[in-house]
């Protein structure tokens, strides 16, 4: 094939795919600034005639979006911070500390990955009900405090730490906790950032479990709040697009700012250990 034609074809196809990938997101942004009812016209308008913040005002003043946003920030931050501690400790132990049954236990954890999380959800709901944690932030946070995937990711990375470094510290009389805090943690910084983004995005976007365990509006996270608004306000496309912007923008911004770390983690996590 003619090289110039081939080049035009490759870049044209890429441009077309990128347009399809981004169009719904750009359309959402545009419609969120339209006046109520403006998007329901033929031909469907692409840009708002008089862009304004009315939908956002309506969302935060009347529809309780501020509360959902705050809940999402709280829940996702708590899950990220706490699960980082739990997964880092366990992943490091599996990679570098010697104890009886280490490989077997790790294999068992990996094996558990074939069980879909939803199998656990019904008894988990009952368990949390008896613990009094249904419809509370703790009910969303507690089951997400550790993840096999997170432990796996940290283990893969921590295996690269040279044993001599840890042995030298032990000979100098440093305790295991001090070694972890002062030597290991700084070395694990890149994977910590990666895991933090993964956990935050997963917690922010999670739908099914919060839907089950959060029974009252005051605790709704953004996806649950948005789904319930979408059922009430099915006709208000402009309002719903503003709600989608509020839900999607924080994670999209986080991804754009830290995408190098995110994509690295994605590849590290997909390599079978």
């Amino acid at each position, binding site marked *: 094939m003619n090289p110039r034609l081939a*080049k035009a074809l*490759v*870049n044209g196809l*890429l441009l077309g*795919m990128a347009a399809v*990938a*981004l169009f*719904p*997101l750009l*359309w*959402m942004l545009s419609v969120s600034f339209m006046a109520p009812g403006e*998007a*329901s016209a*033929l*031909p*469907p308008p692409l840009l708002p005639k008089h862009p304004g913040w009315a939908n956002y005002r309506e969302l935060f003043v009347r529809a309780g979006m501020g509360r959902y946003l705050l809940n999402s920030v709280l829940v996702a931050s708590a899950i990220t911070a706490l699960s980082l*501690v*739990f*997964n880092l*400790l*366990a992943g*490091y*132990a599996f990679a570098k500390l*010697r*104890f*009886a049954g*280490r490989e077997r236990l790790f294999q068992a954890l990996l094996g*558990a990955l074939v*069980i*879909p999380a*939803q*199998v*656990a959800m*019904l*008894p988990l*709901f*009952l*368990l949390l009900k008896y613990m009094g944690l249904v419809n509370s932030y703790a009910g969303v946070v*507690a089951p997400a405090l*550790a993840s*096999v995937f997170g*432990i796996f990711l940290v283990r893969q990375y921590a295996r690269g730490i040279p044993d001599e470094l840890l042995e030298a510290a032990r000979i100098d009389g440093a*305790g*295991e906790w001090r070694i972890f805090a002062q030597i290991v943690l700084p070395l694990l910084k890149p994977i910590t950032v990666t895991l933090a983004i993964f956990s935050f995005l997963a917690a*922010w*976007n999670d*739908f*099914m479990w919060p839907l089950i365990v959060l029974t009252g509006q005051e605790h709704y996270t953004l*996806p649950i709040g*948005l789904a319930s608004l*979408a059922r009430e306000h099915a006709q208000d*496309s402009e309002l*719903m697009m503003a*709600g989608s912007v509020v*839900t*999607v923008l924080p994670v999209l911004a986080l991804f754009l700012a830290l995408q190098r770390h995110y*994509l690295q983690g*994605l*590849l590290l996590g*997909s390599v079978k250990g």
Partner: protein
Amino acid sequence: MNPQRGAWLFLAPALVVLGVFFLLPVLAALALSLTDYDLYALADLRNLRFVGLANYWALLQRPLFWSALGHTLYFVAVGVPLSLGASLGAAMLLNSPLARCKPLFRTALFAPVVTTVVAVAVIWRYLFNTKYGMANYVLGLLGIQPGDWLGDPHWAMPTIIAFAVWKNFGYNMIIFLAGLQAIAPELYEAARIDGASPWRQFRHITLPMLKPTMLMVGILTVSGYFQLFAEPYVMTEGGPLQSTVSVLYLMYDEGFKWWNLGSASAVAFLLFLLMFAVTVLLLKLSRRGEAP
């Protein structure tokens, strides 16, 4: 501190969480599926009875269970190949030496992956609106009859599949891209010297070299697609005429709408068994391919 004990202290927090909030509930789910746990048992545990496999037996005789299973299999069987095809196509374009502005394109194509399913499903609901939706407008410009996408039992699932492909293809694209970059350029060089066409290079170099990646990505995508729930919940509420009720949707309704937790647990376990069987089958098929 004794190093063995130290190790267990490091492991304890994560293992306790996984044990209490995952392992224990999974075992309990198996037990629950053998009982008639319902609203009455929820009120007073003395109403709970052991019923053996009765929940499973009842499910296998319920048309709604079979149709939910059919919809889920339809979603997996059509959605996964389309998804993987789009991922591989995009990865090959990004890997082409002719492509320009690669980082920019990569970010754009990956963007839908990080978005919230619920939020983007709401967007698609409006884009595929019968009357004012952009999809029908564009099709109209091309001279194609508009459709009632999410309101027609025949078209609701295909629309959800299109949505899922759009939302997810970027993830596997990144993994395929890494796989493509790991293929030695000398292989293509040699094939070109021997006069192999681009199609034969793809068929005899790219595909065989990508096979391990393909298998892993395939298995992960299949098990992800079996867990279809949020899309129909937001886009169609299982309708029209229950044509988008998936197995998990049925489990959710059965468990948290009607509070038949015993029967819902049986649904969850049947889904798990099915996913397990399909994974084993995929592994077997890939091994057989290696033999000759």
